[in-house]
């Protein structure tokens, strides 16, 4: 039996990797993948705590998160494609015309 703290530690590690990825990467697709990573880190926390407390509510919540993530992936990828078609680039730092 793996103790709960290991799951949570792994989850925190994954989340940190995702967050750092969002920070330091400029490629829109990489950032997108990092966000997915963070989402799944949270999912992992949900599932492990659900098992720990014997409460299926956490697992149900994971389903919802996955559904939203799927929808978000569709929209996000569509935006990325559209940006690439217009700008021939995926560098997010160049996509800043909405400022001020």
């Amino acid at each position: 039996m793996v103790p709960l703290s290991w799951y949570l530690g792994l989850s925190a590690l994954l989340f940190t990797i995702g967050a750092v990825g969002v920070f330091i990467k400029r490629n829109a697709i990489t950032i997108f993948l990092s966000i997915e990573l963070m989402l799944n880190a949270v999912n992992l926390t949900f599932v492990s705590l659900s098992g720990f407390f014997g409460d299926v509510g956490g697992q149900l919540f994971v389903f919802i998160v996955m559904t939203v993530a799927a929808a978000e992936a569709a929209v996000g990828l569509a935006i990325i494609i559209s940006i690439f078609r217009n700008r021939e680039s995926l560098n997010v730092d160049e996509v800043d015309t909405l400022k001020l």
Partner: protein
Amino acid sequence: MLGAIILAPLVGAAILGLFGKRMGERLIGLIACSTVAVSAILSFYLFFKHHAELEQGQKFYEYLFTWISVGTFRADASLLLDSLSAVYILFITFVAFWIHVFATGYMRGDTGYWRFFAYMNFFMFSMLTLVLADNFLMMFVGWEGVGLCSYLLIGYYFTKDFANDAAKKAFIVNRIGDFGFALGVMLLFLKAGTIFYFDDPDRGIHGAFSWAFSQAHDPLAWSAIFAGGMTTIAILLFVGATGKSAQLPLYVWLPDAMAGPTPVSALIHAATMVTAGVYMVARASSIYTHAPTAMLIMAVIGAATALFAATIGLAQWDIKKVLAYSTISQLGYMFLACGVGAFGAGIFHVFTHAFFKALLFLGAGSVIIGMHHEQDMKRMGGLKKYMPVTFATMFVGWLAISGVPFLSGFFSKDEILYRSFITDGLPEPWPVILWGVGAFTALITAVYMTRLMVMTFWGKARFGDAHDAGAHGGHGEEHGHGGLPRESPRSMVLPLVVLAAGAIFAGYLGVPEGLSGGKLPNYFEHFLEPSIARSKVPSGDAQANGSPHSPSGETTIHGAVVQGSAEVEDHSLERMLTGVSIIIALAGIGMGWVWFGRKPLWEPPSLLEHKYYVDEVYDATVIQPIKVGAINVLWKFIDVRIIDGFVNGAGQLAGLVGGGLRHLQSGLARSYVAVVVLGALLIIGYFVMR
């Protein structure tokens, strides 16, 4: 039936107002006159059908609907026909009908023909509502309605500045009076708990006048005015009457109101609307008889106004202005009558005045049209041979208003003077003073009316040279080469003849008891008696005790007591005073005839010509301070600094905040993420550290 009387002109006004623009002049005139004719016919029908009941003091109600009902406050849209309102609707609809007929000729060719008649019909609706209302709030509806129509019709020639100014002046001055009226009604409700006139068991309504009768008489003292009782109510209502009926000090709007078309001056500013104040006072006579201070003030203001306006009328050059001041002066007589407790005599003067003053105004209108829109009497003279019918009818009006025996004005004016002489409702020196002022005013009235007639119809024609010199003033409407005056068309002459007949015969409805030696009963006052509370005036036939239907019967204690003893003496005194009146009238006419016959262009003292500088004084003491205050305090300080400061300050604050916050939006997606993560870390940190 009563509803139909007031609704017929409203229907006419609606039709003309909505579709009149596409109608021809004949159709417009037909609609306008016929709706008024319907009202007139119904009024006459009701009058003669219920004549006997009305005389006995019966009241006819027509309940339309309950307008407002809040707590104990209730106001119905309901109409009341009693002898007072019956008399009023009779002469209003009759005179108005003939003035409408006159106007179809007078306004011919005017571009606003339909507008004019729509307003006139709407005025009729408002006036009849005012008179037929059975509570003070409905009366106030009509009261404001006639004020509105007066405003619209004074400003009828809205492209002319002077007409607009006159209209605004009339409206604003009336507003001051209306404010007093509204306060009076509110106070009445506070005190009496009702705004209905009379009890009506069918609807479970208590009348304010029944309340008034259950109260003690207020003392005759200045302190009563501010005591918040009956006297305060009476004074506040009288403030409303001074505004609407052009008494001192609120009379200033009426002379300027002559900027409207002449039929308007005849109908609204002479015959009907301006007598609404007298109607209201007579209607509320039960309250006034309990407030002797208010009666004294009313009598004094009435007499003062009569004299004041008559002297100004002596010095005016504009034919309509003379008549306007004459109207103010005659209204003063009416209030004098009410003030001395002779409400019936006041209403009788309203009645006769409606005929002869409408006649004089329409005659003046006929002269103005005949002279091609000339109103200045300096350029008239010798019109007798050009306008024979107008001359003949105005001749009658002149004699009637001057008080020549056996014409209508003689009977009513004489009755007022006699009643003010013998009144015992006022403290001692007042009756004689009031009579003296009234008699002196009668003299001046005769003089200025003679001046008007002499300058207009007799003497040398003064219009020829003015035309040649091109000094044709005023409206600039040249009628080509035929510059000579000519008689007006039939539609204008016929009303003159009818009203002249009225001016001759209307007085015989109310021949004073003393003159006929009691053989001819004073029909008019006898008829009004049930509707009017009697004050302490002793009178030949104090039999009002026998009118059980009206509250007035309960208070005529005084009449019954004084009656018998002075019967014979009464009549000899009355005859003597009548003789004095006749001498005064003839002397006035004679003086005017000799003086103005010799010097028609006599320059009056400039104090009179400038109307005692009242307008200038008002301008300096009221208007300029208000203007200065409005500009310097309200506009330049409160509005610009404070209100604008708040509004602009709020805008500038939002701009400053936004200017600072917009730097957060850098457009770099990763910096947003950084902020989000930082925020999340702070929150987590807070919970961890706690």
